[in-house]
């Protein structure tokens, strides 16, 4: 592949962070002397599937953490559908439509698959805090949870304890829970890492259907380039916390700086 003129790939995002579904300006996160996220400008338009790629340690997960306020940003602003949410507490964000899944399979381990999803549905329906001491929980929450499990294909495993699921099923459960928050913007952190070919296919199909059928805006941290190339609309490349390039997969592929960062000069893989 010949080198594409690097001016067609943008360093920063085109488009205004404030009109995008999810955007940031100058987003920075420092840990002592280390800058994990460095002046990141982001503007993901409504309905786009944006892949975030970069070498290990590039700050991708930290970026997600700052976007969801699992970590407080050191500097910069975050916008959700045009509204500034930089300091909005973590637990408020799913209620505004921003959800995520985790790379490390975060689940409610001892609870059943159904209960994992049901409790999220209940939370979204009743708010971040609800002093509801009566009854056992609305049956409609349970119904909705079953519907979501159906959409990800985990219905037959609904009574299994979460920690006993296979890796791939745990991933799908994580995505199901994120979907249960009824998001408009969904952040997925390496959803296919550690999965076998079969499971990877299932998860990828799920992501695609979520993107197309539900019309969600998706940010996807991925290492698997095949997936990145096949399903993403655009790609943002991070290296050492900074945005190296943003563009379509093909544009980014040919970018010399990106190649340098990944391969240190060798271009066989791309």
């Amino acid at each position, binding site marked *: 592949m010949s080198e594409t003129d690097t001016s067609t790939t943008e360093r920063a995002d085109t488009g205004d962070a404030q009109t995008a579904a999810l955007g940031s300006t100058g987003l920075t996160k420092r840990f002592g002397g280390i800058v994990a996220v460095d002046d990141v400008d982001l503007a993901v338009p409504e309905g786009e599937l944006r892949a975030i790629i970069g070498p290990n340690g590039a700050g991708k997960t930290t970026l997600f953490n700052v976007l969801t306020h699992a970590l407080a940003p050191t500097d910069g602003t975050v916008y959700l559908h045009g509204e500034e949410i930089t300091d909005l507490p973590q637990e408020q964000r799913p*209620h505004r439509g921003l959800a995520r899944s985790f790379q490390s399979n975060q689940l409610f381990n001892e609870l059943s698959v159904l209960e994992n999803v*049901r*409790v999220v549905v209940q939370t*979204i329906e009743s708010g971040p*805090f609800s002093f*509801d001491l009566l009854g056992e929980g*609305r049956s409609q929450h349970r119904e909705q949870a079953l519907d979501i499990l159906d959409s990800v294909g985990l219905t037959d495993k609904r009574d299994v304890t979460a920690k006993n699921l296979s890796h791939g099923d745990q991933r799908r459960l994580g995505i199901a829970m994120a979907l249960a928050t009824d998001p408009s913007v969904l952040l997925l952190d390496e959803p296919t890492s550690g999965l076998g070919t079969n499971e990877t296919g299932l998860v990828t199909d799920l992501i695609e259907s979520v993107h197309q059928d539900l019309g969600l805006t998706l940010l996807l941290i991925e290492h698997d380039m095949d997936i990145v190339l096949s399903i993403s609309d655009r790609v943002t490349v991070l290296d050492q916390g900074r945005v190296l390039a943003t563009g379509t997969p093909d544009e980014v592929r040919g970018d010399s700086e990106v190649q340098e960062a990944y391969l240190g000069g060798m271009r066989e893989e791309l």
Partner: protein
Amino acid sequence: MSDESATNRTGGGLVSGLPLGTLNRYKVPIGALLLVLLLRPLVSMEFLLGYGSVANTILIWMLFAASFNLLLGYTGLLSFGHAMFLGIGAYVTAIGLSRFSSSFVLSAIVALALAGVVAYLIGRITVQKGEIYFAMLTLAFGTTAHFIANYNPAGLTGGTTGIAGGAVPAWIETERGLKYVNLGGFQFDWYWLVAAAVLVGLVVLWQIVRSPFGRTLIAIRENKELARAMGINTYRYKVWAFTLSGVVAAYAGTILEINEQGATLSLLTVETSGDVILMTVLGGANYFFGPVAGAFVWLFAEDYLTDFEMLVLPLKEIPIVSLELAGVLAYWQFFLGLLFVIAVLIAPREGIWGLLRDSLETLYDRLRTGEEDV
């Protein structure tokens, strides 16, 4: 109803094998009812403890431990100062009765209200700190409560001797060492009032735990980072869990006040807070009846083993092996402590109740598969 058994482990897969779905749903209240009805007859049996009044203490401590487990088992918070709420319940009631000649009911209501306020305030400042800091802060507050009671402000709390006189409601009578309740001429054994009160307390806790509020607490216990990421305000849930657990503990304290006919400093000590931790973890923090079982084992052991002199196997009437154990078993806490450490190493959340249930389930499964056609 199977999602309930995974959620809050309120009973056993054992029971879910039975065809009666309703029985399974209400296994905790049913179990609690059986417990309060049968405990005293059980414990009074000759070869156990031989007398009945200890059943009162055991029931009250079971409720106290269950209230503690709302924090530990269901929310994941380890408090080292829970005795303070038991103490508030007992002391405020005793103060109302003896210093202000007030009625028991009014004093008890004030006790619960005060416990709620104190728990809420302490909860607000402590629950969001890390686990160790939380444990230490609750310890510090508990010690402060002990100090205040010892200091005897305005002569209210009686200092080191506590409150002993005039602290019994008018409707309690004592005849030949046994307590009775006398309501308008109708007299009945005090135990039954304790039983009813503890039953109510346990059912209230059960309802809290199975409610949407309680199920969110369980999610928080399982993975608090995930809970926050999914939109749960873990801080407010923890504060209210702390408050509710304090109020129920104080409720147990009001019952204890009548039983002990007053309030003593020993209720507020670190040892008391430590004992309830031991009972709960030993019994099994994952289960509703875990702390109940743990309280039983602990108090039973205390009573049974300290008087143990000879271990005769298999029966007193047919002695084959006999061991002189008088000296050793006076230090029963050593052995229970050892059991506790082993429990923490092997199955920290399962405890005695968990192991018991699992072995009964395995037994039940083996029996069933013996009968089943393939």
